[in-house]
């Protein structure tokens, strides 16, 4: 109840301040104005939300599918790590905002460059988290695996990956938040739909209320997706110690 009460009172204060000081709508619109403009065309806004949501989820999915084998590869041999890691750092050094227009030229004006940008923004912390988890396995557990004559694959599947689950999930939480950022950045550069596109076009026409509305929807999307991951962890991996859980 407390967070809801806090947000509700924040909205009330916001509304009151806007009316009291007669703040122009193009500087800071009141919540009532935001609601009015955003709900005027619900189908339209829903469509944009769906487009952005699709980009976020696709980019996130690709991040997961690439990060997992990449992390296993990185932690399997020092030689491979030495070769691959610098390339990874390079991908992070390139500002995605700068890369996005180039990708559009290379890949076309479809959804593809947006998914690629989202992936590039989101995957790095995920790879690091997974790799970190894989190498943090206590030597005792590895020794146990060896004592049971486990093959490298069995060791990975039955000891190292389960041990890395809390690390993987902390990486997933970071990645989903970044995926939302990445999708919006990509939409700023190239899009004909989506919440990022909506923010850009509505501010261009000074329909600031709509921009704020899109912003709020993006925040809600980020929170919902984040909590989804928290829920998955809690349901399927109840033994995993998360920082959001009370210690026994």
């Amino acid at each position, binding site marked *: 109840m407390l967070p809801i009460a806090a947000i509700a009172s924040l909205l009330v204060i916001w509304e009151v301040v806007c009316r009291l000081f007669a703040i122009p709508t193009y500087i800071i619109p009141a919540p009532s104005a935001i609601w009015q403009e955003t709900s005027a065309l619900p189908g339209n806004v829903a469509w944009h939300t769906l487009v952005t949501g699709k980009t976020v989820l696709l980019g996130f999915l690709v991040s997961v599918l690439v990060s997992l084998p990449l992390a296993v590869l990185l932690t399997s041999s020092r030689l491979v790590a030495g070769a691959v890691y610098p390339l990874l750092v390079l991908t992070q050094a390139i500002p995605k905002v700068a890369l996005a227009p180039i990708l559009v030229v290379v890949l076309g004006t479809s959804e593809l460059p947006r998914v690629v940008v989202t992936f590039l923004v989101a995957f790095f912390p995920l790879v690091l988290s997974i790799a970190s988890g894989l190498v943090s396995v206590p030597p005792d557990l590895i020794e146990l695996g060896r004592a049971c*004559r486990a093959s490298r694959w069995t060791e990975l599947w039955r000891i190292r990956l389960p041990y890395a689950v809390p690390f993987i999930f902390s990486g997933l939480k970071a990645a989903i938040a970044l995926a939302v950022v990445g999708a919006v950045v990509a939409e700023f550069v190239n899009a004909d739909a989506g919440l990022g596109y909506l923010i850009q076009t509505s501010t261009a026409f000074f329909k600031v209320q709509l921009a704020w509305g899109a912003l709020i929807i993006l925040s809600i999307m980020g929170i919902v997706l984040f909590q989804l991951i928290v829920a998955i962890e809690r349901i399927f991996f109840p033994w995993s110690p998360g920082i959001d859980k009370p210690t026994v």
Partner: protein
Amino acid sequence: MIEIENVSKHFVSRDRDRVAALSNVSISIRRNEFVCLVGPSGCGKSTLLRLVGGLLPVSQGRVMIEGKLVAEPRAETGIVFQSPTLLPWASVLDNVLFPLKMMKRVTPESPARAKSLLRLVGLEGFEGKYPRELSGGMQMRTGICRALVHEPDILLMDEPFGSLDALTREELTLQLMRIWREQPKTVLFVTHSIPESVMLADRVVVLSSRPGRVLEIVPVEVPRPRQFGMEALDEFQRAASRIRQLIFGVAASAVH
């Protein structure tokens, strides 16, 4: 059954420094014998255990089990480590069954066998619990069951009771002896407690400080089955005294 022949082991540290852990150790262990390894800290007892377990290669000499050279961990050897090392994501029962799953030897009778082992150590009813819900002593008992589930003929134990409180230690010592009586196997038990070694062992191998050499193998003539309270027996005191003498020198073991 276990032949340790002129085994030496050294480690090369990061700065290329050679550290000799064991020096020319030779021990012969009979089938179903209970042997304890005792020695000061750093004398290489854990290293020796790992050599017998096939977890480390020898630098010189050889370790043979039943006439075969030990080059890798043997399926018929069970190992209990210093800390229980249970898998936090698995229940007690799944933890006990883990070696069978790893070796792909799970049969329909396996869960029943695991449950009977847990009953033997007094953990009946805890099969579904998770490691974080168990005390240290219970986790160690689970670890012991895990080492026994695949019916090994050799049990290697590396200071398993070291991290437990004294009362739990006594309890587990008695339980271990009972298990060994009911299901005989060759046991090599590392400890830094002289009374514990004499209580458990048929023979006690006393190692010197680094690099570990066999100072003497002290036989224990205390009759079995053994109980706490037998520390008063002459046989017990003689063995304990001799071991203490070897480790600390003649002055330390003077009986008043």
